[in-house]
């Protein structure tokens, strides 16, 4: 369907108009225009939900580089539908929020251009079926994220965070590109759907495993999985609407999307299962451990996002086990993990988006996000407090919020995996996963409580706040309120989401299971007194205890050697790379013309000469040579003599006269070669050139004798002779091996085609008239250059400008 393709480009086109509109409307009202874009797209996508839920998929192809397998194919199925709704839905809310959040003194035009650019690229990522197109949009999201993080570019931390996120996500992206190319080499297609159809026959290829790991590298860097998660906390330097949108709801989920999309390709393999699950579970744990020790609310949310992304990632890993044996009544039970992942993906976007907006509101209203300075805001900001409670309790996994449902399903999935008897999954590993998951959930509970209680309860400290705390304006509260409504609404009607959004997405992730019984479980808040509910109760009890006695055990964070961490490794690597590269560049970039020329000539000798040797292309055929007369011999030997004499010329006058000898001899040769026009031109040009040289000599000093060592002279000689030899041999080889007929016969029709009898003139003035015109332009530019260099006086200040 063409409309999906257009949907990708609408944000880009809107971005083009924003600067012009912003010129007219220099106020926050520009946001209303921008907001209409995702809103319209959201309504459009939502109108397609019933059809997609009925199993329909939409595909549209625009032929692009067909010969290379690159076409602009868009594909809308259940999986891309979920992401499309998140991008446009959360996008609309974030823009609505930003209208009130950002001050009118900010460069709003620039901000919205970046935001729309991001939205378009993100839609491109999820709707593209062609891997190359997907890759381009993928990197575009990295770039727009870079621009948005560095939105306040006058701050050093913003620039640092932007660079860090860019370096990490783009290098992962490049790895992913290599993975895509490997997939293409194996399957001969860039289309994800075609690859899914044929990948079964390639699983034993040597490229299969590297391709899988490289695609995962792209996904892990983008979704901030351990150890690449370090960019996300620094990305929090972006304005809060950006953090809510890119760095919690959408962009960081692109990696999740990639894993989900590639589950039918790589799923069922042991490496995929262990890597995705293991990295996900560890990220979940590590993120929650670090979140508890943060004092900046936004940093806390960043680590909690990392942790939650790890949770979703690990669920996709667990769910991939179902594809190991194909469809069977037993294996369908493992698909539940993927179902939970998709469900939690939606839930996370709602509650985390709301929480980010809450933190933004607090920051905006009182001027700080430091929980040590906050407290007691409940009575002053009741609405914000309510939203914070809904968001945090949902994140902690408490009823009646949607996080409870997906958390329960998560526990159930990690418990099911203990029964898995494939992939050499022993009882130790099988039990470790639920234990780590439970521990991480306890810590999740603790930091969720920190957000609510340390911000809104406790002692109010008005003297430590920048501004007097009052409730935020209504406009700012609408967006988080809508998200909070979803948090509660999904809890009460989870099966609406399950049937309309998750069912088609499950079919997209598990093509062989289409329509299978048990693929879309019925979500129920209460399903008996079973293991997951015991785990949840355990989380609440232990979490509450840990939170109450937080100040007694928080000390262990200062025990661990935190100086030596991943961040300092990244920084060290960055400084070392910069040092090494600048050292390397200084070594060969000497600023001396001769060195550069030596590089060029040596490269020429090695590639062209070496190429001749390598291919054994020597077959010199002299039989076609034209006969030669005595007088011609004389000219040629005079030229050789004159040229060699130039090297040894003592004075520059001698040298320039010898050069004149060369030039006039060439003119004579042109006569011999039946080229009268050339001969005439050569004589004129040679005369003027010689005159120019002499004129310049009047201003320049006599050329000094080259004071060089003998070895340097020999070195120069060797290079010069080698280049000369390579040129000669190459030319001789070319003459002996004419592979194509000359095209000159065409020009012999000059009189009929161009109405001229001098063929050379018709070529210059008619057949290739544009070339001649541009040649005149070159002359013109050179003329301007000469004039400027002679006439222009350098001002005294110029020296400063040059640096």
């Amino acid at each position, binding site marked *: 369907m063409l409309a999906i393709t257009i949907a990708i480009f609408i944000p880009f086109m809107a971005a083009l108009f924003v600067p012009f509109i912003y010129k007219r409307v220099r106020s926050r009202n520009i946001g209303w225009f921008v907001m209409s874009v995702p809103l319209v797209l959201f309504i459009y996508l939502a109108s397609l939900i019933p059809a997609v839920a009925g199993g329909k998929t939409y595909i549209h192809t625009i032929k692009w580089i067909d010969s290379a397998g690159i076409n602009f194919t868009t594909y809308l199925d259940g999986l891309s539908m979920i992401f499309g709704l998140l991008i446009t839905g959360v996008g609309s809310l974030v823009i609505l929020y930003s209208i009130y959040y950002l001050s009118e003194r900010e460069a709003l035009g620039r901000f919205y251009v970046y935001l729309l650019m991001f939205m378009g690229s993100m839609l491109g990522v999820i709707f593209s079926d062609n891997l190359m197109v997907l890759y381009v949009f993928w990197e575009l999201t990295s770039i727009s994220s870079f621009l948005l993080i560095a939105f306040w570019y006058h701050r050093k931390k913003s620039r640092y965070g932007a660079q860090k996120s860019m370096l990490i996500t783009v290098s992962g992206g490049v790895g992913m590109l290599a993975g895509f190319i490997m997939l293409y080499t194996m399957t001969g297609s860039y289309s994800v759907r075609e690859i899914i159809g044929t990948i079964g026959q390639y699983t034993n290829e040597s490229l299969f495993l590297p391709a899988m790991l490289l695609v995962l590298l792209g996904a892990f860097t983008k979704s901030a999985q351990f150890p690449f998660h370090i960019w996300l906390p620094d990305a929090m330097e972006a304005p809060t609407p950006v953090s809510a949108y890119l760095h919690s709801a959408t962009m960081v989920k692109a990696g999740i999307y990639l894993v989900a999309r590639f589950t039918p390709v790589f799923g069922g393999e042991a490496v995929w299962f262990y890597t995705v699950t293991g990295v996900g579970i560890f990220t979940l744990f590590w993120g929650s451990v670090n979140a508890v020790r943060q004092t900046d609310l936004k940093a806390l949310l960043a680590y909690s996002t990392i942790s939650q992304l790890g949770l979703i990632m690990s669920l996709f890993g667990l769910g991939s086990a179902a594809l190991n044996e194909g469809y069977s009544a037993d294996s369908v039970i493992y698909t539940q993990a993927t179902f939970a992942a998709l469900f939690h993906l939606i839930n996370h976007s709602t509650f985390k988006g709301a929480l980010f907006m809450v933190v933004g509101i607090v920051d905006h209203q009182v001027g700080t996000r430091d929980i040590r300075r906050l407290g007691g805001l409940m009575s002053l900001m009741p609405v914000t407090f309510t939203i914070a409670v809904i968001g945090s309790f949902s994140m902690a996994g408490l009823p009646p919020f949607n996080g409870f449902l997906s958390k329960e399903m998560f526990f159930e999935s990690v418990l099911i995996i203990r029964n898995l008897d494939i992939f050499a999954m022993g009882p130790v590993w099988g039990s470790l996963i639920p234990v780590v998951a439970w521990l991480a959930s306890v810590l999740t509970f603790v930091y969720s409580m920190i957000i609510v209680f340390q911000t809104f309860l406790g002692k109010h400290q008005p003297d430590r706040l920048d501004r007097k705390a009052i409730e935020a304006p209504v406009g700012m509260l609408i967006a988080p309120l809508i998200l909070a409504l979803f948090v509660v609404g999904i809890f009460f009607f989870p099966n609406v989401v399950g049937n309309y959004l998750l069912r088609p997405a499950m079919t997209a992730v598990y093509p062989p299971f289409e329509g299978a019984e048990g693929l879309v479980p019925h979500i129920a808040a209460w399903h008996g007194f079973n293991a997951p509910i015991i785990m949840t109760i355990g989380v609440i009890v232990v979490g509450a205890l840990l939170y109450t006695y937080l100040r007694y055990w928080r000390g262990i964070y200062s025990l661990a050697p935190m100086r030596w961490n991943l961040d300092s490794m990244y920084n060290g690597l960055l400084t070392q790379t910069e040092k090494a590269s600048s050292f390397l560049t200084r070594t060969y970039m000497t600023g001396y013309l001769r060195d550069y020329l030596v590089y060029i000539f040596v490269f020429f000798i090695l590639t062209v000469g070496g190429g001749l040797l390598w291919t054994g292309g020597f077959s010199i055929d002299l039989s076609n040579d034209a006969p030669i007369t005595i007088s011609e011999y004389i000219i040629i030997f005079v*030229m050789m003599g004159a040229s060699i004499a130039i090297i040894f010329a003592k004075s520059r006058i001698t040298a320039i006269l010898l050069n004149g000898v060369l030039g006039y001899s060439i003119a004579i*040769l042109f006569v011999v070669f039946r*080229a009268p026009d050339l001969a005439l031109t050569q004589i004129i040009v040679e005369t003027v050139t010689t005159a120019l040289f002499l004129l310049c000599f009047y201003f320049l000093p006599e050329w000094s004798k080259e004071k060089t060592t003998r070895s340097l002279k020999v070195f120069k000689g060797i290079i010069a002779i080698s280049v000369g030899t390579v040129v000669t041999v190459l030319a001789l080889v070319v003459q002996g091996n004419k592979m194509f007929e000359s095209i000159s016969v065409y020009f012999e029709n000059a009189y009929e085609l161009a109405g001229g009898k*001098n063929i050379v003139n018709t*070529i*210059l003035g008619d057949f290739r008239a544009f070339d001649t015109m541009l040649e005149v332009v070159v002359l013109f530019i050179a003329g301007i250059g000469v004039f400027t260099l002679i006439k222009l006086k350098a001002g005294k200040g110029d020296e400063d400008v040059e640096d």
Partner: protein
Amino acid sequence: METIITILVGVLVTVAVYLLLSKSLVRVILGTAILSHAVHLLLMTMGGLKKGAVPLLGENAESYTDALPQALILTAIVISFAVTSFLLVLAYRTYKETGSDNLATLRGFKDE
């Protein structure tokens, strides 16, 4: 004929390269001038030498010399003239500003 012209081209290239590797700016410019001479001859040789009449249709000859290399060379002569004159003025200006025509002493800024 072609062979010996090709060898001449080789000699000219050798001389040009040797001059290009000099310290003196004027030698370098001279090197570029000689290099363009060599290239013109090379182009000419590639089209075959003395293989027919002057490429003027009024000659009513049976065959004409390849006109295409001639057109190329005509362009090349003009361009190389432009480049040479520009380089010469550049050398003049450089000497005027820095008092040196020695490339070894002309490298970059000290604080770079």
